[in-house]
């Protein structure tokens, strides 16, 4: 029994059906962790992108090194680091929060690049035209550059959300009860790993296919010329 749901070992099919509610409970945690991690990645990535493009080299250079370091080290090790080292400095977070933070930090190095590429893809003419029209830097950004960058940034971010979803099972090592961990526990208790783990694979396939289709729809729906922010 797990989460109050009893499993039925009378036949493989009955077993599969009886553990579905358990796996779906785990799936909910997977989605929550992915969304929270994604939110952290969006915010932190923007911070990195701003710091990296700072005109002062003393700011830009360390930011580049840090993001490179984050990008080139495994999520699992970063997660261990956060989970075991932070408490030594008095920062005690629940496992779920630590996991979402680790996901967010890892992916912030990637989202920073998306922001940078999206903003750079806006032609220089646009900046020049805004300048010729005597728009302030702030207005140039909020009314000219960002609206045109959004259609380029959003689909790429959507793809990273799908990637984050696929990395959530790593959080199982710090006892987060996401879908894979739940399936593993069911397997440990019933000595049947084949059905729970195969179901998790199938559910993952459905989740990523749905999410990818969502990203494609979003991409089609976004106006290619940009979104006015008014």
């Amino acid at each position, binding site marked *: 029994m797990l989460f109050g749901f009893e499993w039925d070992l009378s036949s493989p099919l009955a077993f599969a059906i009886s553990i579905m509610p358990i796996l779906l409970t785990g799936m909910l945690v997977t989605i929550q962790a992915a969304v929270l991690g994604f939110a952290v990645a969006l915010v932190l990535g923007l911070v990195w992108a701003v710091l990296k493009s700072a005109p002062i080299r003393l700011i830009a250079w360390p930011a580049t090194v840090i993001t490179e*370091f984050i990008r*080139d*080290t*495994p*999520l*699992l*090790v*970063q997660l*261990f*680091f956060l989970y*075991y*080292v932070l408490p*030594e400095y008095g920062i005690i977070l629940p496992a779920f929060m630590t996991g979402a933070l680790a996901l967010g930090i890892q992916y912030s190095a990637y989202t920073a690049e998306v922001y940078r590429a999206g903003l750079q893809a806006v032609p220089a003419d646009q900046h020049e035209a805004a300048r010729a029209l005597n728009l302030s830097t702030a207005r140039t950004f909020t009314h000219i550059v960002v609206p045109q960058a959004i259609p380029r940034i959003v689909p790429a971010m959507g793809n990273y959300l799908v990637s984050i*979803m*696929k*990395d*959530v*099972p*790593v959080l*199982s*090592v710090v006892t987060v009860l996401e879908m*894979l961990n739940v399936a*593993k526990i069911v*397997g440990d208790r019933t000595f*049947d*790993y*084949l059905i729970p*783990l*195969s179901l*998790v*694979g199938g559910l*993952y*396939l459905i989740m*990523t*296919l749905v999410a990818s289709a969502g990203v494609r729809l979003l991409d089609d729906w976004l106006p290619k010329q940009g979104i006015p922010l008014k």
Partner: protein
Amino acid sequence: MTWTDYIPPLLEGAWVTVQLTLYSTVLGAVLAFVFGIGKLSPNWAFKAVSVAYIELFRGTSLLVQLFWLYFALPMAGMAMGIDLRLPPVLAGVLALGLNIGAYGAEVVRGAIAAVHQDQHEAARALNFSPRQTLWTIVIPQAIPEMMPSFGNLAVQNLKDTALVSLISLGDLTFRAEQIRNFTQDSTTIYSMLLVMYFAMALVVTVIMRGLERYASRWRTARS
């Protein structure tokens, strides 16, 4: 124990990580070419298998694949009366290689599709067979296009090897965990671990840059 005492066991683990990375990257590269070409093949059976492979391994999580190969596959084998128990090394290399191969296959497909249509027409005009066109005209031009993405995937693969520590394979992360359980010195060990992975990733990047230069050596100008 001081931090210098951690170095020998960590290096032992690092060697396992290096081997895993090497084997799974080579396996992944082979799979990438087979199924990347397969996805563009006119043969529908080959194409269907390629699409199914790519979707299956890109659509599910690497850790799920690893656990499935290590925990679930032996049971599937038992049901069929075959012994499919894989040693951890084999399960690790297979899962990593199959996973990265699916991502690589999309890169191969993209690069082959990006070769200009004129090249196909010129090859046809010169009476090249489809096979000759593929191997002597299209692929040599597509490889330089693939190399930057392959470089990223190789680093990705190195990072992913850390997951094999979860099926009790004695890689770098596994060794670090062992030392931590013994000494409780989390900060030092995990800092060293992060630095070692970073150093290895830099080496992989340098190697892949070298391969990229080698693959595009005949290119005179960017077209």
